């Protein structure tokens, strides 16, 4: 017969997926989650599950809300104690393939909770996770108990260990699409395992967005931060998210305080955060010019037999330094020698933004400069050879004339051939870089003195506008202030409540609202299932 009085119950099952690790297609926790959701037909016989409810002495459950600002992503953890009088379930003393196989690390634990008056097939799953480490054993001669205690954590722990790099998301990808794709592609979750809520309409502002060397769950937390959500695996083991907004609606309203045993306000030892700084990044690059300076130097030496030359010049060895207003300064021209060896010109390779990273100095016409004169002198040389060498200037006085003329002509030719043109050039310009501009939004409690200031800084490069930064700073400050209204609540556990939920007590003007940070409770057979909640009050007007 159904009564109004609750008769809380629980069931604990263990799935031995470790025994399939050597199979070609080992069973993974994903299949267990889908199996429990009725979306996976059957699991291998060895996986089970085995029902440990009758062997279980008790389970301590701690559910914790994630917090982007302080502790980051949080997981639900359970500590379970199994009665084991003959050491049958001890993975150390009675290892696989014996019954010790069930309590091995990485095996999946599923806890269901409900009311004994209802068919346990209808009970909701409140925990899906994997056993961590090696269970402990306790044989006590005084109390004559023999127990094995193990610990399991929800799926966040496993995913926080996995570090990786996402693909490159192009501009205007929505944040929702990014989060869902990372969950599916990078975290390897089945579509049915992803239960992310709709969280806003933001999209990526940068030309490309890629998350490098971090856990994918942290990445999703980053993506959700501008909208105030945190990722979390629900009891079924599906990826979900909770909203950290303290202004959201109540999950439950207890008008006549039917479930609460006590609501305590502990001493608050010191003032916490009273100023929040949000650092974002403007997606538009800002051009930063340096002062005008020498970019490059070049020189060339030309001679009579030199032909034209091109000298490539760049503003850095790796040809990445950009510069604008580049000026070609000729320190010494090759055309400045007694015989002009040609001329020089400069052309830079202009980029689409009007700047350049390199250019080319063209030196041309070098050999042709003295060619005409040389031809003339060659003619003169031939002519001089015809001049008779001995010329009688006076009786008995013979001078060597032809030889002298030839010598002069030869010297003139040697002078031309020996000429060197020296060109020396300098390129001047304004080097510049493109860098991102920081966006900074601060929200501070009014009237605080500088010595009392407690500021936290949150940096998230997906905050791409000043409005977003301002909004986030206000939202986080309100939450951080409310977090200092610490309340501890003892209550009969209500399965509807989860971390980050807000519940209200009372009604009308007397109604008080509490946001949940942690829920701790002990499940024992036939017990009252009292829960200890670590909350903070978010009633309007209540301040630390």
């Amino acid at each position: 017969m159904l009564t109004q009085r609750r008769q809380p119950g629980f069931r604990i099952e263990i799935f031995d997926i470790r025994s399939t690790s050597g199979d070609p297609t080992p069973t993974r926790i994903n299949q267990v989650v889908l199996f429990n959701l009725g979306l996976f037909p059957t699991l291998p016989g060895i996986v089970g599950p085995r029902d440990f409810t009758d062997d279980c002495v008790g389970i301590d459950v701690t559910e914790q809300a994630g917090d982007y600002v302080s502790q980051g992503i949080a997981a639900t953890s359970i500590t379970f104690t199994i009665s084991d009088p003959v050491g049958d379930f001890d993975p150390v003393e009675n290892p696989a393939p014996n019954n010790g196989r069930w309590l091995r690390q990485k095996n999946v634990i599923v806890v269901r909770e409900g009311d004994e008056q209802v068919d346990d097939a209808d009970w909701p799953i409140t925990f899906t996770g994997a056993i961590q480490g090696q269970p402990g054993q306790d044989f006590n001669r005084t109390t004559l108990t023999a127990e094995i205690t193990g610990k399991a954590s929800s799926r966040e722990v496993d995913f926080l260990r996995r570090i990786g790099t996402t693909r490159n998301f192009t501009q205007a990808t929505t944040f929702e699409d990014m989060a869902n794709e990372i969950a599916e592609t990078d975290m390897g979750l089945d579509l049915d395992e992803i239960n992310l809520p709709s969280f806003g309409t933001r999209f990526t502002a940068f030309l490309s967005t890629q998350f490098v060397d971090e856990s994918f769950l942290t990445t999703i937390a980053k993506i959700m931060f501008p909208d105030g959500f945190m990722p979390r695996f629900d009891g079924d083991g599906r990826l979900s998210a909770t909203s950290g907004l303290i202004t959201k609606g109540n999950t439950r309203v207890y008008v006549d305080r039917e479930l609460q045993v006590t609501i305590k306000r502990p001493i608050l030892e010191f003032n916490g955060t009273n100023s929040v700084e949000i650092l974002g990044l403007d997606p538009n690059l800002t051009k930063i010019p340096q002062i005008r300076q020498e970019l490059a130097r070049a020189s060339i030496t030309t001679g009579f037999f030199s032909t034209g030359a091109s000298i490539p010049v760049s503003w850095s060895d790796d040809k990445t330094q950009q510069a604008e207003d580049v000026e070609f300064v000729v320190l010494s021209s090759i055309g400045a020698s007694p015989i002009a060896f040609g001329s020089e010109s400069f052309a830079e390779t202009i980029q689409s933004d009007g700047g350049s990273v390199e250019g080319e100095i063209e030196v041309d016409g070098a050999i042709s400069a003295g060619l005409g004169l040389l031809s003339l002198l060659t003619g003169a040389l031939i002519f001089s050879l015809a001049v008779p060498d001995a010329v009688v200037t006076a009786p008995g006085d013979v001078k060597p004339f032809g030889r002298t003329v030839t010598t002069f002509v030869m010297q003139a030719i040697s002078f031309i051939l020996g000429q060197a043109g020296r060109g020396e050039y300098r390129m001047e310009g304004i080097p510049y870089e493109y860098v991102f501009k920081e966006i900074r939004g601060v929200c501070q409690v009014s009237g605080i003195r500088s010595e009392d200031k407690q500021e936290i800084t949150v940096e998230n490069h997906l905050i791409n506008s000043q409005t977003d930064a301002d909004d986030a700073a206000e939202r986080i400050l309100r939450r951080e202030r409310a977090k200092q209204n610490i309340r501890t609540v003892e209550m009969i556990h209500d399965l509807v409540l989860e971390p980050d939920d807000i519940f209200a007590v009372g009604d009308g003007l007397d109604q008080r609202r509490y946001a949940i940070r942690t829920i701790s409770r002990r499940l024992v057979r036939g017990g009252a299932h009292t829960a200890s909640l670590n909350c903070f009050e978010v009633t309007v007007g209540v301040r630390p």
Partner: protein
Amino acid sequence: MSGDLKQLIAREQNAIQQQIRGRVMSDPVQKNFDVIGLAEFTWVVDVDIGSDKLLRDVPVKINGPKARFYARVDQSVFLEKDAQGRYQVIRPADRVRQQGRICFLDEDDGIVSPTVPLGFDLIVRPYEFYKGNGLPGGSFYNDGVHGYPEITKLDQDGNEV
């Protein structure tokens, strides 16, 4: 350990963080920076590090005239503390820091004020022109007869200020 003490320790730890970003707010000038008079001239700049006061005369670590290439007005730089705990400019920053915005939460009525600019704004200094003292060839010194030359200040658009 009391909560107060923990809080103070945390504040100290924050204060010794390795590198901070700042924004140069003055032209670099050479100053005899060393107080014990070793006559070492150093390029120094004023830097906005986001607090309510400017850091004055912050030395530029990579010194010499090249310092002016990056440690100059409106450029973002990284600062680091030296062995004596003095900040010094060490290199250009990877992003531009400019004025932010701040709002204030009034906890009595729960209302947040409209945002206002946070940090220092750069104001372009008026250009100074020396008209000279009317002597042939001009002089910028007091020759004892004609007095100091007249100075006029013009803003960016050429208007006298």
